């Protein structure tokens, strides 16, 4: 008696198109946290072959790169940031691609902006004003960025102040020592407080993966952040010695997948730091498409934290249109 063909399965967690409910978080499940396993060599092998198993060329490449732009948190986080600098950045976020290029790509009528503009708290009002009406949200880094070691009360006040100033997204950093010491309860409690302080603003939790030592700790910290209500988990501040890498991102993406499979809730992922080229962007997008699926290539579930990436993507788009290699100085400055 031949057995019936089993029902088909979904390749990835099923997430509806359109607005998603926020991650409600859940109780800290320490058994779940403890059960996570990550084999670094295997993760590195997978990361290394993602881009050799998949290739995006020609029209597909142009389309993917345009999509990449919509996923960028265009970022300036420097001590010498000024309002003028932030206004310039915001203008670029509104119109990241030259109209003639969009025209040539048959995309003139498609709204292309970056995913957000990401600044320090002091620059939030400037950015909010500069982006008014654009639909581009302002993200503020918060909680004693980048070390995360200021008093909790200060960190919470910082979040509230940024939300009050108009930030719709708050990028917080975790206390790395809580993760390193395995004090998951403390980490969970703090992140839950951050989430509470965010109110309607979305919470992006930076793990500082370059400081966490092992991929297993990365996975555990990511899970704790999600259980505590993170809307996004993010790799790095951009200030650690090692920032976003593909193996780290693979580990976090798989933890996001695990969370979605077990809770039905889709949490976003943001690699940040060191993603500078169009080629890098494609690699991360392939990672997301393969491990989490098409739905995780929309700005509500995936962002790049980057400052220099946009310029290189513009060059590649120009090359696609003209067939000539483009100069950086011909792309409008961010």
């Amino acid at each position: 008696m031949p057995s019936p063909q089993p029902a088909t399965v979904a390749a990835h967690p099923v997430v509806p198109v359109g607005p998603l409910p926020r991650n409600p978080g859940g109780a800290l499940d320490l058994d779940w946290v403890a059960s996570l396993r990550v084999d670094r060599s295997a993760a590195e092998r997978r990361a290394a072959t993602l881009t050799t198993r998949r290739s995006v060329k020609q029209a597909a490449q142009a389309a993917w790169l345009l999509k990449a732009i919509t996923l960028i948190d265009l970022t300036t986080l420097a001590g010498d940031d000024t309002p003028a600098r932030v206004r310039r950045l915001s203008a670029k976020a509104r119109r990241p691609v030259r109209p003639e290029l969009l025209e040539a790509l048959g995309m003139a009528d498609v709204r292309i902006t970056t995913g957000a503009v990401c600044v320090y708290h002091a620059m939030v009002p400037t950015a909010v004003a500069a982006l008014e009406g654009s639909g581009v949200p302002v993200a503020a880094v918060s909680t004693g960025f980048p070390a995360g070691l200021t008093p909790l009360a200060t960190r919470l006040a910082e979040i509230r102040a940024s939300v009050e100033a108009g930030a719709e997204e708050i990028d917080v950093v975790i206390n790395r020592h809580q993760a390193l010491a395995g004090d998951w309860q403390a980490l969970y409690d703090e992140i839950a407080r951050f989430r509470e302080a965010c109110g309607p603003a979305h919470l992006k939790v930076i793990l500082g993966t370059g400081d966490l030592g092992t991929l297993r700790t990365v996975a555990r910290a990511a899970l704790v952040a999600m259980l505590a209500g993170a809307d996004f988990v993010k790799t790095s501040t951009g200030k650690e010695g090692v920032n976003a890498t593909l193996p780290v991102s693979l580990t976090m993406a798989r933890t996001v997948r695990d969370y979605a499979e077990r809770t039905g809730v889709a949490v976003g992922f943001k690699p940040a730091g060191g993603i500078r080229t169009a080629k890098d962007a494609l690699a991360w997008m392939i990672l997301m498409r393969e491990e989490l699926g098409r739905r995780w290539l929309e700005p509500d579930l995936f962002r790049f934290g980057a400052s220099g990436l946009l310029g290189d993507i513009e060059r590649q788009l120009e090359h696609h249109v003209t067939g000539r290699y483009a100069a950086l100085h011909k792309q409008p400055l961010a």
Partner: protein
Amino acid sequence: MGGIMTVRDLFETLDYGPAPEAADAARAWLSRHEGSFGHVIDGVLEDPGPDTFETIDPATGATLAVCAQGGDGDVDRAVRAARAALPAWQALGGHGRARHLYALARQVQKHARLLAVLETLDNGKPIRETRDLDVPLVARHFYHHAGWAALLEREFPGRTGVGVCGQVIPWNFPLLMLAWKVAPALAAGCTVVLKPAEYTPLSALAFAELAHQAGLPPGVLNVVTGDGRTGAALVGHEDLDKVAFTGSTEVGRVIRERTAGRGVALTLELGGKSPFLVFDDADLDAAVEGVVDAIWFNQGQVCCAGSMLLLHEPIAERFVAKLRARMETLRVGSPLDKAVDMGALVAPVQLERVRRLVQSGIDEGATCHQPSWTVPEGGLFYPPTLLTEVEPSMVVAREEIFGPVLVSMTFRTPDEAVEIANHTPYGLAASVWSDSLPLALDVAPRLQAGVVWINATNMFDAAAGFGGMKESGFGREGGREGMHAYLIDQVERSLEPYPDGALQPPAGPSELGDEAEPAADGRRAVDRTPKLYVGGKQVRPDGGTSYPVRGVDGRHLGEAGWGNRKDVRDAVEAARKASAWTKASGHGRAQVLYYLAENLDAAAPRFVERLRDLTGVDEAAARLEVDRSVERLFTYAGYADKYDGAVHAVPIRGVALAMHEPWGVVGVSAPDEAPLLAFVSLVAPLLAMGNRVVATPSPRWPLAVTDLVHLVEASDVPAGALNVVTGERDALARVLADHDEVACHWYVGSADGSADVERRSAGNLKATWVNHGLRRDWFDPAQGEGDAFLRRAVQVKNVWIPYGA
């Protein structure tokens, strides 16, 4: 993948779109040869002649080229060319040959794209694999062996290239298998006649052309194309010194039979049904990706494919769910597309076989899981397939499918996992997934496989040996162990045949003994009947028959048991059960061998007298034989905890441990001469390395060994570790060679007996070491002991352990 998509469409779908690799260079190469190829013999690419076959692109069905079907005459010309080229090639020396191997590695790199595309066209495997795996590994293999060539004299003293090699390779990794065969052969100073598979001859022809351009002397590498008939002609050629084959176990058996008794060195790398064990503490996502690399690599047409998924019950359901989801994201299509995971199967007959086997699995009650998408039409495509609800007794769980089909079963404990994993005639590779080092390193040595990957799969490197156990063949390719397959001891070349009449078997039980002689003082000694020694007990022969043993002067010295096939069966059974000896530490085994040596030394006068009576030697010679026997026991007691494996320098963050493992049950057929010393010389290294031995002593003069058995009994040798069956050598050897539980057989006797053992060993493809009727001087340490014995007393298992947290 549909029609032309616009940027706007793709912006929504974010599909990959086509990413075709240009085939221009490969097509230009084919056109330059007008799509027609003959053999490459003595440095000349010949015209194909009248008898030809077509090689096709399995992804499209298009004919790529017409190649020559090699006949006996072609093979003969090629072997002659290789023979003629041999002296100059050997005379070139290690460094001279290293230069050539280095140039070949460079050639491969310089023409990497041509070779990769050509391979993909001819074989149907994805360009990603030929570009990123096959061709780089080929270059790596020639670089690595350029090193061995340069180091040969220093690293392998007293050993030289075995001579002219006939090599037959399969279609699944055409160029890589060429490299695995050709690189060590050339490094060792051998010349080669290579027969590529008829489905995939092109990369070998391209390589031969590149080699010619690089200045490889004519005749050193000859390529004869054709089907199985050509292969048969090659392995049957009488002027070969060595045959190396990679392919099916079925053909391997035939080759073993055809090469038997010809004095041809043989290595076989055959089929597999390699287990892929996932424990509940593994990184499951990593293991899922491991499965992809195990069975959906090269469309599953991989001899070491992890085709038997064994899942720990606690995670079985979850793992299958993850795996099914992963199958949905695999992409099957044009192998020249840079974004596909699987291309086409190599030939219609393979596709048919895969379909038939999957259907048989379904008919037997397995559940078949395939992705929801369908494979492209027009080529030999088959989707990734998982069969669950499989039982070990089903055909799909036992037969090598050689396609993208995985069968899964579950286990409860590590012991059960090992039991299921080993419960196959094959023993090529295994993959173990666990986050627990103690668990993984406990399981790996217990798996009967030549290669074990821990938390990884299908890793290959020139520095690590690859090859199988059991019916997956014998011999290793790669690493130091791989070089041995192409080298021969000078000592072995110097051996002479036995003098005429030296190998007469005893008359046997048909002849009754003479009346026993009374002792000098007239008293009659109490009868002392030598028996067989099986499972730690002295037993009477099954047939209830003894035969007289006479001294060299014809004097009747006693009677020995006339062992028969049932005695051998019982002895093998006892040896099979004596696994404690294998598990004992090297130190522990050394203690036992020292103890035996101590007891032998103490009983030396008795053995001197016995040897004098038996063989008629003078006292000094007899004393020397006893002393040498004691010495030999010391030698191997010394080696018991020192014949270490190696840690290979493979290019990963991790180690590849080349572990020396005993065969298990080994048969020994000892010669007549030096009846004590030869026996000890054969048995001691095997025991020292942890083998359990079933030995037949000198048929003519077994009494020295039956005396030794009394010492064995008194020396803490565990029951079954050493079993002794007296009787006629060749009759007992036949039973040992036929026995499927015997993993290896050492035979020292006549040329005919050697041939018979080799021929019969094809049954379970046991490894053999036979003397082809040549006589060794057991008293000479250069001939009677040392590395040659130890090397053959073990098989090398490579355990790959990548690490990182």
